[in-house]
C-alpha cells in the first residue's frame, strides 16, 4: 500500500489548506501579495539623474558636469562604485557600438552633444576602439545642423547619417511593419545604444526610446496612423534591432511637453537630467509620466485628455511583444 493511500481524510484536508495558504490562493489578499512579491523580484530599473547646475550660469551644458551626471546614472543603473565598471558590464572590447541619436528636432531639441561625447569617452575607456563607435541618425545634414561633425574615416569616432550608406535592399517584416533597415545598423554595429530625447509628439503622444527607432528605417512616414500603434512596438520587435539594443540613455536635459517633435521654445523646459534604462518600455513609461507632470504644471490637458495617449507603450509590453514592462509596480525608478 502506498503512502498516499495511507493518508487519512483529515490529514489530506490539512495538507490541502496548508498548500493553498502557501500559494496565496486562500483569498484575494494572498493573491495580491504574491503578485507584489513577484513584481519586487523582477523590476526594471530606470535611473533619473539630475544636476540643477548642469548649465552653470549659462544656457550651454557644461561638459564636465555632464560627464559626472552620466557617471552617476550609469553607476546607479549597474550598482557600481566605479563608472568604468558599469560600462564594462555593458560592452566588451572588439564590439562595434552604434549610438542612435535623434536630430529631427533641430537645434534646441536634439541629442545633446556633450552627452554623446561623454558616452563616447566612457566607451573608449571601457575598451571600445574609437573607430568602432558610430554616432548616427537618418541624415548627415540634419546631424551637422545640430552640431555633430560628420566623420567617416580614420581612427576617430565615426559620425554620419544613413544617407551616406543607404538602407538594405531587403525588406524585413514583423506584424504591421515592413521596412528596409539602415546599413549602419546592420553592417556597422552589433551593439546599439539608443540616445533619444524626451519629447512630446503630436501624433504618438510622446517620442522617447521606442519611437527613436523610426530613424532606423526607410519609411517611417508609413507608421504614424493610429498614434503609431502598433507600428512602434512591431518595429522594435525586428531581430536586427532587438538583438542589438542594450541600453537607452535618454537626453532629458532639454525636454518638450507640448508641440513636439519640433523645437518650440515656449513648450520646452530645462530639465537638466538624463534617464537611463535597459528596459526601453519602462523608460518610455517613466518619461511619459515626467511629461504628464510638466503638462499638469503648465495647466495643459493630459495626453489622454488630448486624445493622444501613447498607447503604443502598452502594446510594446503586451504578451505579443514583451519588449519590457509598463507596469509601474514592476518599474523601480531610482533618482540620483
Amino acid at each position, binding site marked *: 500500500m502506498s503512502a498516499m493511500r495511507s493518508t487519512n481524510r483529515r490529514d489530506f484536508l490539512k495538507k490541502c489548506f496548508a498548500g493553498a495558504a502557501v500559494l496565496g490562493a486562500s483569498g484575494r489578499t494572498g493573491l495580491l501579495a504574491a503578485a507584489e512579491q513577484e513584481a519586487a523580484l523582477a523590476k526594471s530599473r530606470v535611473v533619473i539623474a539630475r544636476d540643477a547646475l548642469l548649465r552653470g550660469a549659462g544656457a550651454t551644458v557644461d561638459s564636465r558636469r555632464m560627464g559626472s551626471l552620466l557617471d552617476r546614472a550609469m553607476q546607479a543603473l549597474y550598482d557600481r562604485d566605479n563608472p568604468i565598471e558599469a560600462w564594462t558590464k555593458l560592452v566588451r572590447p572588439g564590439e562595434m557600438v552604434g549610438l542612435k541619436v535623434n536630430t529631427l528636432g533641430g537645434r534646441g531639441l536634439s541629442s545633446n552633444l556633450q552627452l554623446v561625447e561623454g558616452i563616447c569617452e566612457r566607451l573608449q575607456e571601457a575598451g571600445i576602439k574609437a573607430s568602432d563607435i558610430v554616432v548616427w541618425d537618418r541624415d548627415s545634414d540634419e546631424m551637422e545642423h545640430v552640431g555633430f561633425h560628420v566623420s567617416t574615416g580614420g581612427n576617430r569616432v565615426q559620425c554620419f547619417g544613413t544617407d551616406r550608406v*543607404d538602407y538594405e535592399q531587403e525588406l524585413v517584416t514583423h506584424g504591421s511593419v515592413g521596412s528596409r533597415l539602415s546599413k549602419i545598423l546592420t553592417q556597422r554595429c552589433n551593439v546599439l545604444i539608443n540616445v533619444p530625447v524626451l519629447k512630446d509628439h503630436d501624433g504618438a503622444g510622446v517620442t522617447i526610446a521606442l519611437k527613436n527607432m523610426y530613424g532606423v528605417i526607410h519609411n517611417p512616414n508609413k507608421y504614424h496612423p493610429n498614434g503609431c500603434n502598433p507600428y512602434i512596438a512591431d518595429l522594435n520587435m525586428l531581430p536586427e534591432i532587438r538583438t542589438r539594443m542594450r541600453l537607452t540613455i535618454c537626453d532629458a536635459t532639454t525636454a518638450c511637453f507640448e*508641440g513636439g517633435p519640433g523645437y518650440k521654445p515656449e513648450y520646452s523646459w530645462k530639465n537638466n537630467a538624463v534617464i537611463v534604462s535597459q528596459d526601453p518600455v519602462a523608460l518610455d513609461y517613466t518619461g511619459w509620466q515626467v511629461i504628464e507632470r510638466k503638462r499638469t504644471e503648465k495647466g495643459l490637458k493630459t495626453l489622454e485628455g488630448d486624445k493622444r495617449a501613447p498607447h503604443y507603450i502598452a502594446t510594446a509590453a503586451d504578451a505579443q511583444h514583451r519588449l519590457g514592462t509598463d507596469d509601474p509596480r514592476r518599474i523601480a525608478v531610482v533618482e540620483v
Partner: protein
Amino acid sequence: MSRELDTQEGVKIPADGAAEGRSPAVRGEPSPLSCALDRRSFLQCALASGAALGVCEFAQLLVAIPAWAGPQKQDDSRFIVEAKFYQKLQDKKIKCKLCPRECTVGDRERGYCGVRENHGGTYYTLVHSRVCAAHIDPIEKKPLFHYLPGTLAFSLATAGCNVNCKFCQNWDISQVRPEQVSADYAPPKLVAELAKQHDCPTIAYTYSEPVIFSEYLMDAADAGHEAGVRSVVVSNGYMQEEALKTAYGKMDAVKIDLKAFTESYYKDVVVGELKPVLDALVTLRKMNKWTEIVYLVVPTLNDSDAEFRGLARWIKTNLSVDVPIHFTQFHPEYLLKNLPITPVPTLERAKAIADAEGLHYVYIGNVPGHPAQNTYCPKCQRMLVERVGFTASRMLIRKGSCPFCGQPIPGVWHA
C-alpha cells in the same frame, strides 16, 4: 539598366509574343473594313512592349532618363515647390487636403506619403520634376484599352504613395522618400519635348502614385497640351474631390486601381479607404472624363463572387455599363508573398459575373494571349481590337463605332 516598372503586369511573356487568343464568341474573318496598324506603329509598340517587359535589348535606348547609380547627395532645392492643396493651422502646423487621409503635419515633418514636408508652416512638395522612373510604354500597358490603342505613352513617376498596398510591385519607388531613390530633373517642358521626340502622343503619370505629385502632373499636362501631347493618369483615386477636379481635370483619360470592394480590404491590405475611391469614380464620371478601372484579383482576399457581383452592380448603377473593367492577375510581391498567382479560372469567373451583370467591356489582364484581352462589340460580338501582349495588333473601330453593326464604342479613339 532599365527598371521594370509596371502597373498591369509584372509578368514575363516570351519575346516573340504570347499565343494569339480569340473570343469563343467571335471567329470572324478580317473585314475589308479592317484597318490594321501601320508597320511603323506596330514596330514602335512591339519594341516598347519588349522594353517595358525588360526582355528587349532596345530597352535602354527607349529609356528617356537614365537610371542613377547609387546613393548620393542631390540638389533638392529645384524639386521643392509649395504644395497646392493644404490648410495652415496654428503652431506652424498644416493640414494636407490632397487625399482623404488629411495628415496634420508639424513643422519639419512629412505627411504619410513621405514626399511633402512642412517648413515653418508652409507645406511643400519635394518631388516636382523629380522623376525617378521614365519609360516609353504602349498605352495598353497602363492598361487603357479604349484610349488611342496602339500608341505609345511617355510614362513617368516620382517617389512616394499615399497608401501602402501589401502587394505593391513598385514598392521600391512608391514606398520610399524621394531622397532614397535615384532621380533626375525633368521640368514639364522637357517632358513634353521628350514625349514628342519619341513619337508619344501621350504622357502617362504612373508606376508610383500620381496623387502625391499632383502639382507636377498639372504643370506637365499643361506643357504637354501646349505642345500637342495629351496626358493620362494611372491612379488609386484616393484623393479629395477638389484636388481630383483640379488635377485630374487636366487629364485626357484616367485609369483607377479599384483595389477591392470592401472597406476591410482597404483597411488591412491597402491602408486606405474604399468610399473615397468610389466617390472619385463618380466624380470623374460627372466630369465626363474617360475612365477605365483595374481590379487586381488577389486569391482569398478579394476574389469572392459576392465582391465581383457587388462591384459590377455598383459600376452599372453609379457609372455606366460602358466603363471598361480589367480583372488582372496578382503576382506575389512586397509584403504579400505568401499567396499564389491568381488562377486564370478565378479571373474568368470574375469576368463571367461582370458580363452577366451587363457590363459591356470586361477584360482579363496579365494573362498574355487570353481572348479577354481583345475588345468585342457588345452588340454583334465581333472582335474590334485585337491585342497581343501589350500590342494592339489590329484595330477595327471606325469613327468610334463598330464597323460591322454601327454600335458606338465609347472611348478616345484615333481621329
